[in-house]
């Protein structure tokens, strides 16, 4: 069982790296790109004995306490087999 954890900056937090990436992409000629926000993606391998609910709870705890800083970031957890 695997948890996919997506960590993104809160919409109110400036993302200077995303802005720089956006700028480079514009230079390539992709003028129709409106904005780019950079985030982090984690794959957390979980013990197969966990139920989906337990896996979700475990991954949420890890995301909240370690992978994301809730002051500046949001997170989203997806459990996959």
């Amino acid at each position, binding site marked *: 069982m695997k948890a996919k954890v997506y960590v993104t900056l809160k919409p109110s937090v400036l993302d200077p790296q995303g802005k720089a990436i956006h700028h480079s992409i514009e230079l390539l000629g992709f003028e129709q790109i409106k904005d780019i926000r950079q985030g982090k993606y984690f794959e957390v391998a979980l013990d197969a004995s966990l139920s989906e609910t337990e896996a979700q709870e475990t991954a949420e705890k890890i995301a909240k306490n370690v992978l994301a800083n809730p*002051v500046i970031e949001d997170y989203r957890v997806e459990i996959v087999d």
Partner: protein
Amino acid sequence: MKFGVLVFPGSNCDHDAYHVVSKHVGQPVDFVWHKQTDLSQYDALIVPGGFSYGDYLRAGALAKFSPVMNAVKDFAAQGKYVFGICNGFQILCEAGLLPGALIRNKNLHFVCKHINVKVENKNTPYTSELGAGDVLSIPIAHAEGNYVCDDETLQQLEENNQIVFRYCDENGETSDQSNPNGSRSNIAGICNLDRNVIGMMPHPERACEELLGSNDGRDIFRSLTKAIAAKN
């Protein structure tokens, strides 16, 4: 009176802090390895700059799980002094000892230069020997020094006079031009409500000798020493 300088894997300003305390403050000081959990012999702890745990995940994010950090929280709760500098400030924010967070500099650069900060609050144990509005020349050296917090937190910081230093020009004017990293409201250093925990991005320990270009950092350490002496 005894100082401790925390050492995490990747700390690299620990020796500078140790040097300043032993040489300029003239007080006993120990390095405190991050696995230590007994801090009872110390009056003040310096959380030094560097790249604890290689800045993996987020600057300061992994250091907060070091064994010493639970002891640091108890230490701070007892009203003892915790002084975070640069990576130390990032660690204290990650650990929840100070509000807000430090993200990538607005211009994306690692900025390493002398900047000016204005003393916004002289009524703290770290600034009592300074004058309100004094402008200090202190170096910064960071890529993640952009202080962010939500509106409510900023309002609380303002109302409770927790903003200790702001980036400014040589005349003490705060503006976007004098803000080296995009920090909200030009914030360079803040303290907690009880004033015993402080964090700042500039490095006062690198500004204690004329040979290094400035000794404006000395009064911060002198203030702290005076506060400890008054308490003991």
